[in-house]
C-alpha cells in the first residue's frame, strides 16, 4: 500500500491503495465515482474508458502507480455540471438502452471529437470499435457522433 495522488475531474485526491490496483477500481471503490463501468477487466470492452491527459484510455489496464500525477477525467467530469454536447447528442438520438456501456462510449466519442472535428464513418469505426455495446446501440451511437460534430461546426 502506498499513498498515490491523482487529479480527478480537476481535484487532487490522495488514496492509499496497492500500486497494482487498476485505475478503474481506484475510481470506483476508494473514490466512489461509479459512472465508470467494469465490463471485462482485460481491455476488451472499454466500458471503463476515462481520459488520461485528454486521451481515451481503458482504466482497467492502467495501474494506480502509472496514473499517479496524471490528469484524469471521468464521465462525471466531462461537462462541469452541464451536459456536454456529446451527451446532448446522445439524448437527442435516444441512444442508450440498458445504458451500462454508455459512459465508456461517450468518453471515447468525446476524445474522438476533440481531435477530429468531422469524423467519417471509417473514423468512427476506428475510434469506437473498442467499445462493446451488448444492447446493439451502435447505429444510434454513430448518428449521435455525427450530430455532435455538426453541432460544434455550426
Amino acid at each position, binding site marked *: *500500500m502506498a499513498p498515490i495522488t491523482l487529479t480527478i475531474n480537476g481535484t487532487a485526491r490522495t488514496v492509499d*491503495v*496497492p500500486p497494482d*490496483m*487498476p485505475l478503474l*477500481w481506484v475510481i*470506483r*471503490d*476508494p473514490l*466512489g*465515482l*461509479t*459512472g*465508470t*463501468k*467494469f*465490463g*471485462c*477487466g*482485460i481491455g*476488451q*470492452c472499454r*466500458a471503463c474508458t476515462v481520459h488520461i491527459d485528454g486521451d481515451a484510455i481503458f482504466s482497467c489496464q492502467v495501474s494506480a502507480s502509472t496514473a499517479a500525477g496524471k490528469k484524469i477525467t*471521468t*464521465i*462525471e467530469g466531462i*461537462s462541469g455540471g452541464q*451536459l456536454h454536447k456529446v*451527451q446532448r447528442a*446522445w*439524448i437527442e438520438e*435516444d*441512444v*442508450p*438502452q*440498458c*445504458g*451500462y*456501456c*454508455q*459512459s465508456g462510449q*461517450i468518453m471515447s466519442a468525446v476524445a474522438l471529437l476533440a481531435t477530429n472535428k468531422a469524423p467519417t464513418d471509417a473514423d*468512427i*469505426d*476506428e475510434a*469506437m*470499435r*473498442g*467499445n*462493446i*455495446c*451488448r*444492447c*446493439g*446501440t*451502435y*447505429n*444510434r*451511437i*454513430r448518428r449521435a457522433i455525427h450530430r455532435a460534430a455538426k453541432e460544434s461546426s455550426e
Partner: protein
Amino acid sequence: MTTTRGITRRHFIEVSSLAGAGLLIGFRLPTKGTAGTAVAGGEINAWIRIGTDDIVTFIVNQSEMGQGVLTSYPMILAEELEADWSQVRSELAPADTRFGSQGTGGSASIRTGYAKLRKVGAAAREMLVSAAAQNWRVDPSSCRAENGFVIHAASNRRMSYGQLAEKAATVTPPENPQLKDPRTFKLIGKPAKRLDTVSKVNGAGVFGMDVKVPGMLVAQVAHSPVFGGKLKSFDGSTALKIPDVRNVIAIPTGIAVVADNYWAATKGREALEIVWDEGTNGKLSSADITALFERMVDQGKVARSDGDPAGATAKATRKIEALYQVPYLAHATMEPMNCTADVRPDRCEIWAPTQFQTASRQLAAQITGLKPEQVMLHTTLLGGGFGRRAQTDFLADAVHTSKAVGQPVKVIYSREDDMRAGFYRPAAYNRMAGALDAEGWPVAWTHQIVSPSILEAFGPLKDGIDRTSVEGAENLPYAIPNMLVTYAKPDLPVTVWFWRSVGSSQNAFVTECFLDELAALGGKDPYELRRRLLANRPRHKRVLETAAQKAGWGAPLPQGRSRGIAVHQSFGSFVAQVAEVSLDGQGHVRVHRVVCAVDCGDVVNPDTVQAQMESGIAYGLSAALYGEITIQNGRAVQDNFDSYPVVRIDEMPAVETHIVTSGDALGGIGEPGTPPIAPAVCNAIYALTKKRIRKLPIKQLA
C-alpha cells in the same frame, strides 16, 4: 401517506393523499396468467404520484434492462390520464412487499400491462375530473381533461392536476372508467423519447454494480469450475494475508473471499487454494455432448405429427436430409452478475439487478429462514438482462455471504466467473428431412430435436416435451401436408436457461435454413416459396412481403453481394428480415444491411420497436457469427470477450425497420428481432457461395 381509502377486494385501486404533496394512487393489476380474472387484494403493482407541482410520476415495477419499460408504461398511463408528457417522470418501484408477483421476461411487459394500465390511467383521470367538478359545482360530464388540466369550457375555467391532486384523493375511485377511443390517442403509437436517458449519459444511473451501503464489503465467490463439482477442501491462509481481505469463508455455493474492495477480493480469490471434487463430469467435452445427442436423436417424443411424412418421403423422388447444430451460448450481459445483500437477524435487505423479484425474495427467505415479508428487495437498473437475470445464483451468493459474515456484502462476478457460470442457451442437435412433390413443392418435413431442457428445472415435463425446446419448430407455419417434429431430452450437467428468444433462437435458424434448402432443391425462389406456403398465414405473409419489397428482393446487387430472407414468429410478434452480405478476402462475413419488417399488433412507442429490432439483430448476429461456449474437462472454455467475441460498431449492419400495423393482438418486442437474423444471413451466404451453413457459429468461411 396520510389517508388510505378504497381498499377492498373489489377495488383495483388504492388512493392515498400525500402529506401536503398531492395524490398517490396505487393499483393492483392481476399478475401474469390471471389476466381478466378478479384481482387479489392487498398487492400493489404500480403507483401514480401526482404532485402539487404538477409533476406526474409513474412508478414502474417491471425491471428496466434496456427494453424501455420505464417509458412505455408511463406512455400508456399518461395517454388515458391525459397528462402533459413534458411533466411526466418515471421511477423504478421501491422495495415494497405489497408489490405482487414481480418478474420481467418473455417480452411480456406490454402484453400483460397494456389493457390494465389504460384502465388505471382512465380511473385517475375521472377522479381528477370529479374533483374539479365538485370544486366548481358543475356536472362532471361538462368538464374535460386535457394535457394536465381539467377544463370547464362553459365557464372558461381550468385547474391543473397539481391543484386538484389533494381533492382527488378524497374521490371514490370508479370501478369502470371510460377508456379513450384509440383514434384520439396522442402518445400511444407516436415515437417518444425515453424518460431514463439522462441518468444513462451522465454516469448517475445506479446499476447493481454501483450500489453503496454503509459498512458494505465486497466479495468474489469461487464456484466449482466443473459443472456439478463440489468443494473438497480449501486453504485460505495466503488469501487472508492480502491487504484488505477480511474473510475467506465456505458458503453452500462456493468459497467467498470478502474484502474492503473488489481488487483485494480479486487478489484474494487468486491466492485461494482449492481442491474440487469434480464428480463424474471432470472429463466431459463438447464432442461427448454431440455424441450423446447423436445417439438420442431417434428417441424423441412426438411434439407434432401431421399426415405421414415417412410415406410421403418414400414416394418422393427429390428429398434431402441435413444435420443442423447450435452451441451453448452465454448471455454476456454488459454488466457482470452482482448483488448486494444485508442479512440481519430480523430482516434481509437486497439490492439486485434482477428480472425476477418474486423468486429472489423467496430464495432469500429460504436461505435466511426469514419470512418473505421480511425480505426487502430493491431493483436497480439492469446492465442488460436477456434472460440471465431471471436466474438467482448471484443473489444466493450475496445472501449466503452476508449471512455468514454478518455485514452487508456486494458480490461481484468477474467477467470470467460470469461467463463460466452456466445457465446457457441450450446447445441443440437437429436432424432434418424433407421431400418435394413432382412440381418441386415441399410435401414432407421431419425435424428431430435433441436439446437439454430449461423447463425441467421447474418440474416434470408434460409428455416429456420441453415446449421451449420445440417453440418455433412445432408451430412451423408453412403449409406442408406431412410433418413430424420430435424432441429428446438429454441429461447433462451443464446448466441451461432462457436466452433472448429462447427456443426460437435456434429453431428459426434450423427451420428457415432448411426451408431454403428445399427451395433450392425444387428450383424455387426462397421468397416465392415462403409466400406460397404462407398463403393462409396473413401476419407472416405481410411482414415477409414488406421486408422483401423494401429490400428490393430480386433486384440486382453489386458483384459479390447477395441477399437472404427469413421470417419467424415468437412471443406473439411476426418478424421478417432480409440480410445483404458479402465476404472479404479472408472469408469473413460482412452484413451490410438488414431490412426488417415487424408486426407486433398495436405499437406503444415505435421508436422503442425500432431500437429493439436493432438490438435483437445485433444480439442474434453476434451469436451467429461468433457465439459459442464449448466444454472441455467439464468446464466452459470461453471466459471473456477475447474468446467470446461479439459484434462491434464496425460490423453492425445498417438496419431499416418497417412496422406493419395490423391492429391484431399485441406481441412482445424485446426478443422477436433476434431469431430471423441468423437464417437470413446464412441463406444469403448460400446465395453467394452455394455453401450451406448448418452449424453455428459461422466464424470464418474457408
